[in-house]
């Protein structure tokens, strides 16, 4: 099953490699990993998308908690939450494709943030499924580059991960 793990960790040199090292050493899988400092610059917030049985995910949370740099861990997918990912796609936009790209981007509520004679850069946010759907919807040969940030997640309502 897919799980979204949220981690508050000390914003220290090496903290990221402790987390990623743990995943590789114990054979846990990482689908995506995002990290950046929080409003408190001494701490970073990380979102890891992983998958595994309940037992494996229980071990993942326990092992993460055991790392000295890790302040708090939550499995967001245990309750209602929001996940978002940002994607930048550079597409060829010439001739009739120029109009078509604009149209699909609009349908997906994307924004065209860079324009040249031959290409657009489209910015798209949403959950991962929406981004996948966009890629599916456009003609593959027109895609020049894609960049995805990986998922960031947050709990709904009163679910707060803070110290």
């Amino acid at each position, binding site marked *: 099953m897919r799980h979204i793990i949220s981690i508050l960790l000390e914003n220290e040199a090496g903290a990221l490699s402790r987390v990623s090292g743990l995943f590789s*050493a114990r054979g846990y899988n990482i689908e995506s990993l995002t990290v950046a400092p929080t409003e408190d610059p001494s701490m970073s917030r990380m979102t890891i998308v992983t998958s595994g049985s309940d*037992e494996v995910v229980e*071990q993942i949370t*326990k092992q993460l*908690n*055991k790392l*000295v*740099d*890790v302040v708090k861990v939550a499995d967001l997918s245990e309750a209602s939450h929001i996940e978002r990912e940002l994607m930048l796609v550079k597409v060829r936009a010439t001739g009739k494709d120029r109009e078509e790209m604009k149209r699909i981007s609009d349908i997906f509520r994307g924004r065209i943030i860079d324009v040249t004679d031959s290409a657009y850069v489209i910015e798209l946010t949403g959950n991962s499924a929406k981004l996948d759907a966009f890629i599916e919807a456009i003609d593959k040969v027109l895609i020049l580059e894609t960049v995805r940030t990986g998922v960031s997640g947050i709990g709904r309502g009163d679910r707060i991960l803070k110290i």
Partner: protein
Amino acid sequence: MQLTGAEILVRCLQEEKVEYVFGYPGGAVLHIYDALFKQDTIKHVLVRHEQAAVHAADAFSRSSNRVGVCLVTSGPGVTNAVTGIATAHMDSIPLVVITGQVPTAAIGLDAFQECDTVGITRPCVKHNFLVRDVKDLAETIKKAFYLANTGRPGPVLVDIPKDVSAQLCEFHYPKTVSIRSYNPVVKGHSGQIKKAVQLLLEAKRPMIYSGGGTILSDADQQLIKLTRKLGFPITQTLMGLGAYPAPDRQNLGMLGMHGTFEANMAMQNCDVLLAVGARFDDRVIGNPEHFAQNARKIIHIDIDPSSISKRVRVDVPIVGSVPNVLEDMIKQLEADTTKPDAKALASWWKQIDEWRGKDSLKYTQSKDLIMPQYVVEKLYEVTGGDAFVTSDVGQHQMFAAQFYKFDKPRRWINSGGLGTMGVGLPYAMGVRFANPKATVACVTGEASIQMCIQELSTCKQYNLPIKIVNLNNRYLGMVRQWQEMFHGDRHSESYLDSLPDFVKLAEAYGHVGMRIDRPADVEPALREAFTKHKNDLVFMDFITDQTANVYPMIAAGKGLSEMILAEVEDL
């Protein structure tokens, strides 16, 4: 007053009441060695290889429950130390490992003797630090000791660049330290403890299984009290030997791959299992699926939540320090008016005694070949069961665990988790430094002992009267045993040719050497070593039966009730 980083480090170690530092100098730690030279409260032990420095510090800790400290230089000093660090990590031994690093300005430039120490050691330490500013040094050292010795203990490494050890700074050693992201649970959940006691009282076929955690947390007295109160059978892991006295009716001995028949059978067939500071590892319960075939309720006490339900699902997890939780359980038990089910217990004991009747450790001592088991039995007799026994890895290790009946904790010192050949001699050194009057024996094999043989020189320098019991079977015995059992008896690279003359070797290092090849000479030789040569290091080279195997045995991947007992003709 301003002190250099090196002086600050030494002051920190003094504040921590460190008595011994095991180490080896080199360029990146020269300032630190200079600061050590100028004081005389901390004694430095100069080993002959960095691996041994870590092993010695590790055994210093295992045998005393104080934090072991070692000091090595950057680059090769660190890489040599890694085996020692990983060994300590696997067995949760509290160490502070101080390593020199190239100057901060040179880090990342492939400087001479540079290595990514923090990166290399990250997976085998509890935590590590790179100190980039001398202002952080004292607090980092405080944190290192705190982390090493609280919660689930483990090695903590502090990497100190050469310029940091030279920079000047005011010295201030914090009295306490707190780390917001690190709050080990000490006290067990009272509801869980109630539930556990309830289960124990209802049990028909109960079993207690205790591991290294009981020893590390000094919970032996509580364990004994609870076990006696309940009247339940108890078994210990390789790492747990000594927490409960071996010569005791309730004690079924060691369990696991080479555990006794009764311990493994009781473990497999119990209906309520109390696991204390143990982690259900593969050498203990074998195949978890096979283990799960028998339904039983499991109570698991451990300081580390990640140890719980890792290989085996448990019903009543109790996170907390073992002595604390056991104490609460005892109180709960005393407050409860129900008593264990005497009738059920009696028939359970009857069953256990039947298993015990198999005498699964039985062996036959022949007239002309020395059996390795016999040497350990005699060692036990001659030392009155009162020695610290270190061991290496292999058959001799299992024989020592099976036949030396430990009745005190912290007396049996060996590498259980990583299984590191070469630990025996440096372990004996560390034990002797922590217990300067103790009798220390190192039960080893001719292969293992050669992995840190250079430490005979250290033993000479510091007059360490260790008694080396070399069970010399001319084979990588444990490897040969597996080849015999699982690889068609093809002895691929397991015969040790061109062995040195260990007697001459011992003498070359300035020690006493003995070669014993007749059974009748075993006991006299041991007596001579422990009395006449009480104050010498004696290397006893026992030429043993080459074909002896360790039994019982559970093959890797098999279940607890699938034991191979001794060869038929031996039974």
